[in-house]
């Protein structure tokens, strides 16, 4: 077994300094930073800082080199075929907006975009906006009672006018993993590209983005144990050179005159201005460190914790799971409601026991509507969570129910 997997909390500085008790279960919103990422961030910002891509002095040259190394490391972590497929952004939301703008020229009046009811607002609103700008149509795959996207209805939605299919890899509410391969095949059959919101993917281990079959894949650094302020849009190499730029500015050009500009090659064409260098180096360090962990062990443990959590929650009277009751086909994200107690009041009570959970619509209002709730409480796991966290949560819920119902 990989050294360190047994005491992962030690690799995350916050656990040494946070006042006890501290049960952090809001990992789907933002996870805690791992030491290698924090150190890379600190080293760059405090000791080795220079802008990238232009300077020839050693400090600047080293920064550029580190930046490109981060690109390679992230490419390796998600299984990209080339580092140049990695476009750095400031987060998943910007990456998804970028995807929408890059693909917008393919949308004509009356063309079609397909999303799902389970999407995070960041993978819905940019498509609504693009549809509005181009006079395109947007429809959404429904979900079943447990929040599963109805892939079976794909064929009913897809037409020769479908240009874009945009789906989540893993729901940030139910933790359900979308079966992307058949979607990719069906989308490609009608000539559409498949954009995947991967915000909840890479936090659960290295992946092989090419094998998912998608064409673009977006995610954030702060959810995968690196710093806030960085994100990635992976673009399949076959598309890289034909997509137009989105943001204009320094570094994305080959030659600028007042009347016109010739753009640089990908990925530079998509990275305008000074990038979030520190956060990107931190992301590279996190990816490198994560790659060294034994994910069979970590995934097994997450699954066991999830089973325990689901089991305990289902035994608590007054608690109702929102989403499936089993751990099959999902990661460690569980939404639930406490009958008669508002999610915010639940979370506020839990906070008094050092439990950090999120209550709200989780930026997924259409999914809330589908579930017929306004909001839920959500517990989301990371590799550093353990049985104590689950026990504390269950205990906290009992106390909350006693006091507030």
């Amino acid at each position, binding site marked *: 077994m990989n050294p360190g997997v047994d005491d992962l909390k030690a690799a995350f500085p916050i656990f040494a300094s946070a006042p006890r008790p501290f049960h952090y279960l809001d990992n789907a919103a933002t996870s805690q930073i791992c030491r290698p990422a924090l150190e890379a961030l600190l080293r760059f910002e405090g000791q080795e800082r220079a802008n990238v891509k232009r300077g020839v002095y050693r400090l600047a040259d080293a920064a550029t080199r580190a930046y490109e190394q981060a690109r390679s490391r992230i490419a390796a972590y998600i299984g990209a075929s080339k580092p140049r497929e990695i476009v750095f952004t400031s987060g998943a939301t910007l990456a998804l907006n970028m995807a929408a703008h890059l693909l917008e020229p393919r949308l004509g009046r009356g063309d079609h975009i397909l999303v799902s009811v389970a999407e995070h607002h960041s993978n819905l609103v940019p498509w609504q906006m693009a549809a509005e700008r181009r006079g395109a149509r947007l429809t959404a795959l429904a979900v079943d009672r447990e929040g599963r996207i109805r892939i079976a209805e794909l064929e009913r939605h897809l037409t020769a006018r479908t240009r874009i299919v945009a789906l989540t890899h893993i729901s940030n509410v139910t933790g359900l993993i979308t079966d992307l391969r058949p979607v990719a095949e069906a989308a490609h059959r009608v000539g559409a590209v498949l954009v995947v919101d991967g915000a909840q993917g890479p936090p659960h281990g290295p992946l092989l983005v090419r094998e998912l079959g998608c064409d673009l894949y977006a995610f954030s650094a702060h959810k995968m144990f690196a710093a806030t302020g960085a994100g990635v849009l992976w673009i399949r190499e076959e598309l890289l050179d034909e997509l137009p730029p989105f943001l204009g500015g320094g570094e994305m050009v080959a030659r600028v005159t007042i009347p016109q500009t010739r753009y640089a090659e990908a990925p530079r064409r998509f990275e305008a201005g000074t990038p979030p260098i520190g956060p990107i180096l931190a992301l590279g360090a996190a990816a490198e460190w994560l790659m060294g962990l034994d994910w069979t062990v970590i995934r097994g443990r997450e699954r066991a914790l999830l089973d325990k959590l689901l089991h305990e929650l289902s035994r608590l009277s007054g608690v109702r799971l929102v989403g499936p009751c089993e751990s099959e086909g999902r990661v460690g994200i569980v939404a639930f409601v406490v009958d008669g107690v*508002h*999610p*915010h*009041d639940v979370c506020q009570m839990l906070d*008094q026991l050092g439990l950090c959970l999120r209550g709200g619509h989780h930026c997924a*209002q259409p999914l*809330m509507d589908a579930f017929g709730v*306004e909001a839920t409480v959500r517990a989301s796991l990371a590799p550093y969570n353990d049985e104590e966290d689950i026990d504390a949560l269950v205990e906290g819920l009992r106390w909350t129910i006693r006091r507030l119902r």
Partner: protein
Amino acid sequence: MSEELYNRQILEAARERPAAETLADADVRVDKDNPLCGDRVRLELRLEDERIAQLAHRTRGCLLTRAASAMVARFAVGYGLEEVRLLRRAVERILAGEDPDPRWPELAMFRPVAGIRSRHDCVRLPFVALAEALEGAAARTQDCGSASAED
């Protein structure tokens, strides 16, 4: 302080049911959402001489919002714009951690919320709805009074 957040006064106020959830002859109706959580207050008022003669509310929200709605229902009948504005200010005082306005000592129950900024809007929501309802009504009266060329 945080320990007493869900104090007895708040829990009891949150359980109070409004005298009416809706008014057949309301002069003003205001819907107010909390974008953070989708909580919603619907307030209906019957006015007489620009003062609140009757009040109904339907509140879907957390304990804090429900307790705040109960306070609005308890206080507001008889109030005009002036008092409503003073009440709004009294609520802000409490949320800023200051002593309660002696006119509304009950507001002291919200003192522990001062330390939790993300919940301030939960307390504010019903009071803001009340202020908007009366301000809207006053503006309308003015508009008519000044016989503006609006139509």
